[in-house]
């Protein structure tokens, strides 16, 4: 079983990398980009028996820094 963990900066936390990407997109002539926030995607290949709460535990203990980041877990069944 695979799971994807999406890690994003909490709203209100300044994202200098997102800002730089935003400026670069504007520099390439893409208008209408209101904001850019950069995050991380972590793919986990897990034992079938892994519970949701175990994955959440992994996020809280290591994958995300919950002081500044949010996480969202997506289980990919049959993957």
């Amino acid at each position, binding site marked *: 079983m695979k799971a994807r963990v999406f890690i994003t900066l909490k709203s209100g*936390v*300044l994202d*200098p990398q997102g800002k*730089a990407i935003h400026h670069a997109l504007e520099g390439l002539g893409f208008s209408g980009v209101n904001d850019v926030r950069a995050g991380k995607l972590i793919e986990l290949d897990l034992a079938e028996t892994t519970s949701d709460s175990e994955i959440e535990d992994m996020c809280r*203990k*290591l*994958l995300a*820094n919950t*002081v500044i980041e949010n996480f969202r877990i997506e289980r990919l069944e049959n993957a």
Partner: protein
Amino acid sequence: MKSAVIVFPGSNCDRDLAVALEQVTGRKPEMVWHKEAELPLGIDFIGIPGGFSYGDYLRSGAMAARSPVMGAVKDAASRGVPVIGICNGFQVLTETGLLPGALMRNAGLSFVCRGVRLKVENSQSLFTSGYHSGEEIVFPVAHHDGNYQADEGTLDRLEGEGRVAFRYLEECNGSARDIAGILNDAGNVLGLMPHPERVIEPAHGGDDGRRLFEGLLETIAA
């Protein structure tokens, strides 16, 4: 004073810190590898050095914060043993939860590497007794992720409790309220981005950092 310097794969200021400690205390520190689950007996002081532990993978300091030795460092800190985290060491301390907040990518996105002017905000701590409050000093910085951020409530608490030890006197990395170094609530854990261990004798281009270690030694010996 018997000190320990924690060494992670990717630490690169461990020797500088060891030299500073040896010069000031007259005794070589114990170098403790990150896989050790216990510290040597009778350690009076723990230093977590700068560098790029685990290549800054995931987040700066994130992997190091979960290594076996940090359990022992946390125990020692809770018993009141003074702990200093410099640069990557500061990042490790926030990742372990020993200090509040987080160190994010510099607001200007560039790696900053230069001497910066700092103000000593609190000279009453274990680590800053060698300075006067309000004194201006210069320490070098060398980091990419030194942008200190915490929620407003935490920042207000740090200020109100005199836990901002050092503040930048010039734009450096975008840190909230120009915070360069903070103390834990008990006052025995200090994290700072600038490097006092790199300025301990005039040949380094300055010796403002020496008094941090001298003050600490005096307080611990007293």
